[in-house]
């Protein structure tokens, strides 16, 4: 989805009505390198993008249904009562606090990350839809501030997602390599008993 999106972006590599003014964008008029683009040309990239979309939406809905049906959402959803714990956890990570705050399966910062990334996925899909059907779903497009603004948020969601994924995987290898296998297989055999 990201690589076909970068190919699509190249057709009009800016955000704003024709002739400007344009939204602040460090990638304005940037052509992303060939290895990062999927589709070969605009039509090819659109067809990849709109085909893979079904996978993203399908898996996303399955995931959310599973979370609700299994009750797993309780250990992942960041709620108001997690704010205090999140601050304590952040103090611990910054070495402002010596002892590791008590936690359940996931600590409040982890809950924040898992909730944030799901919301980011929802934002990606909704902004995508706002760009796909800006007349039929004009209320949705208007919600994001119009067609060009929706394009803008759709684009930024990608970089936040890419950044999140890189940091996420670096942390996995830095803190708890066995959890990398757990991410793929579903079975955890590491040193943190709380994960099971």
């Amino acid at each position, binding site marked *: 989805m990201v*690589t076909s999106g970068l190919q*699509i*972006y190249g*057709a*009009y590599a800016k955000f704003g*009505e*024709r*002739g400007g003014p344009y939204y602040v964008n460090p990638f304005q008029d940037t052509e992303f390198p*060939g*290895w*990062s*683009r*999927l*589709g*070969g*040309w*605009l*039509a*090819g990239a*659109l*067809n*990849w993008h*709109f*085909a893979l979309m*079904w996978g993203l939406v399908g898996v996303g809905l399955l995931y959310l249904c599973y979370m609700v049906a299994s009750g797993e959402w309780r250990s992942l959803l960041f709620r108001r009562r997690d704010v205090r714990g999140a601050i304590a956890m952040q103090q611990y990570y910054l070495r402002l606090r010596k002892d590791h705050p008590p936690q359940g399966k996931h600590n409040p910062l982890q809950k924040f990350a898992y909730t944030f990334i799901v919301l980011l996925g929802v934002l990606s899909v909704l902004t995508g839809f706002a760009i*796909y*059907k*800006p*007349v*039929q*779903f*004009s209320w949705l497009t208007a919600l994001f501030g119009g*067609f*060009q603004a929706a*394009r803008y948020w759709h684009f930024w969601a990608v970089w936040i997602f890419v950044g999140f994924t890189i940091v996420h995987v670096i942390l996995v290898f830095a803190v708890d390599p066995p959890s990398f296998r757990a991410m*793929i*297989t579903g079975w955890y055999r590491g040193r943190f008993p709380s994960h099971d």
Partner: protein
Amino acid sequence: MTRSEQTPETPETPRTSRRDFLRIAAGAGTASLAAACKWDGGNAVRPRLLDISRVNDWVGEKLLYSPSRLAREYATTERTANVPSYFISRTLPLLKDPAAWRLRVDGLVRQPLDLSLDDLMRMPRTTYTVKHHCVEGWTAISTWHGVPVSAIAERAELLPAARYARFVSFDADYSNGWDLASAMHPQTILAYGWNDNPLPPSHGAPLRLYAPIKLGYKMTKYLVSVTFTDKRPGGYWEDQGYPWFAGV
């Protein structure tokens, strides 16, 4: 014919362990990612992508399109200063004899028509200031005026068997195929005016199709004919892989 000719002989499949499976999956994933760059899917995947595009066309046409939903209109002060224009021919398509130009309306109609620009101008006129959505991602606001396609269909006495409309230009071999519901939308017009002036050659003079409910490439410029049909017509970009429905 012996049995071995019917089915290729397969050796006893060794039991694949989970570890092997993951190794294969990871390898295949990496390889496909590497091969993916600049790849339109090739002969193996491209047809499948086009199949999915047809499914998306169906979803767009049957589930997401509302024939009564109107595109938002803007104030004339919000018009975009420089609206780009495109054509397929090497040079700007111009009529040798503008006075001889006629719009041909035929196909599944009781009364085929040959309309001059004056005939069209005497028909009911629709004027609106709307946002244009290009497949590339740019948008531009302009004012257009012309005759609703539905008024043309009524005058030609459209037959109930018609399900599509085919619009043909004199710009090389450019044409478009439309679903009838989108063609009959009240904001789908044959425009002969742009920003209060006669349509300039750069935007498709003397007559072009315009509708704020479709992407720009569906709006045939330099029109010569409208043909109503029961078979889905292709189009210049659509036949090369761009989405056929392209409603916004």
